[in-house]
């Protein structure tokens, strides 16, 4: 733990509202008709409501909660994907998202080409990816297949390459969304080891998982969200224990 604590992620009074049409309107034609008939009704839905959060640099912070508790929305607000409806989000440091591995892979391109494309999606230049390329191939154990089109990869190979690319550079703030459940056990261990290594080097890690043992084992603090509201926050083992009592 750093002796002097500095903020990494600060949320003040953050709320996110989704406006869902009460009936799904999928076409422009339908929308125009409804608009003329003044039959456009929206249902409002607060995915996160009045959330305050203060995560310090070097912390490994876990988030637990049932499906629909607002965990993914929270990660989206922090990684700039969604702008909060009200409230303020401040981020100190570069964010590396580990959301759904290989989301940006293109099936026709080779593994090698996808490494550079995926790196660019995460904001790294060609040179920056070149520096870590050999290391990515080694970590993902794909040396023989790196020049084959990625459509020939198995889902395990896909996930391995995705994780290797996303974690090739030491991040300042790493966001991990339910990804450690991919691949075989040996690879999962490699992933958790790498995240632990980042933590030792001072990175801040924010984790969402349904694997409560993982949260209790890896995180120092955690928050329990329910219907967009903070139920409990504190020591990770404590929060996990409370969540287990309350929810199951």
């Amino acid at each position, binding site marked *: 733990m750093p002796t002097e604590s*500095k903020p990494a992620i*600060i949320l003040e009074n953050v709320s996110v509202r*989704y*406006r869902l049409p009460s009936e799904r309107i*999928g*076409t*422009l*034609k339908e*929308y125009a008709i409804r608009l003329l008939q003044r039959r456009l009704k929206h249902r409002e839905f607060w995915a996160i409501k009045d959330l305050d959060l203060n995560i310090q640099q070097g912390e490994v912070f876990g988030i637990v909660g049932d499906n629909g508790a607002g965990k993914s929305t929270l990660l*989206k*607000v922090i*990684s*700039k*994907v*969604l*702008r*909060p409806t009200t*409230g*303020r*989000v*401040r*981020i*100190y*440091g*570069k*964010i590396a*998202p580990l*959301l*759904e591995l290989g*989301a*940006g892979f*293109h099936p*026709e*391109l080779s593994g090698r*080409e996808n490494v*550079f*494309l995926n790196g*660019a*999606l*995460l*904001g*790294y*230049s*060609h040179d920056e990816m070149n520096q870590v390329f050999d290391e990515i191939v080694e970590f993902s154990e794909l040396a023989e297949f790196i020049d084959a089109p990625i459509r020939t990869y198995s889902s395990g190979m896909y996930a391995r390459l995705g994780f290797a690319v996303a974690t090739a550079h030491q991040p300042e703030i790493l966001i991990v969304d339910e990804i450690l459940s991919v691949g075989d056990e040996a690879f999962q261990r490699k992933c958790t080891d790498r995240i632990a290594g980042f933590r030792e080097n001072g990175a801040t890690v924010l984790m969402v998982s349904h694997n409560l043992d993982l949260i209790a084992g890896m995180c120092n603090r955690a928050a329990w969200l329910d219907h967009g509201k903070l139920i409990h926050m504190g020591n990770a083992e404590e929060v996990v224990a409370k969540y287990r009592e309350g929810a199951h």
Partner: protein
Amino acid sequence: MVRFSVVNTRTVSEKTKPLYDSSKRVSPAIAELKEIGNYRHLLAQLIRRDILTRYKRSFLGVAWTMLNPLGTMLVMTIVFSNIFRASMPGVPFPVYILSGLVVWNFFSQGTTASMSGLVWGGNLLQRIFVPRTIFAVSAVGTALVNTVIALVPLIIVMLITQATFSWALLFLPIAIILVAFFTLGFGLLISSLAAFFPDVMEMYQIVLTAWMYLTPIIYPESIIPKHLFNVYRLNPMYWLVKIFRAPIVDQSLPALSDFGIAAAISIIMLVIGWLVFTSKSDEYAYRI
């Protein structure tokens, strides 16, 4: 000691200023411009990807970009040259058609790819942050590369038909840039619509076909009836095709007034498209 403390305060002051603050924000249009600059590597990668994947599975490779307009031109020439030849004395009909098709393909490819790029990227936009305009910008970038490749068969056909090569051809890059501006602006505009209503993509294909026949691409301007001429002047593509064709077909620079109208249309469309798209872009992650 002194030096150490100086270094230390600097790092502290750097860290006390957040990299991202949701409450601080310049206009979305300007912020987006900066982000495109930050993500220029991604832009290059996306263009590379689109060009590579298009050719990877086809035997003919890059040649396809050249053969495609050439084939259309050949069919059009065979079908229409006898009908229209009388109204175009002195201009090789294949050159006339091909030069129009080059501009039209740039526009239709670029705008269609802008939309499909955003729909593809929508999946990504919900997961990680990338500038929202990057899919349209890269689509137009790809179309630009394809257009430059498509100039090769145009030059070959000009050589075969013994067309005159004039110094006015040096104006072509400017005309191409104006077409790119218009394509990006219009592509952004319909992309913001397609983000909310997927059926816009299918409707647009019908619009494109009608629009092409309303633009003098495969027929000469001279057959347009007098009373409809003012309607034709409302078509932005009419002006863009006209200034692109002038150096090729007339061997002269376009009239200054034509150039002024084409430039104004393109720049205004780009500004409108950019403003509309970026003003809506925070909502895409909620909707796509």
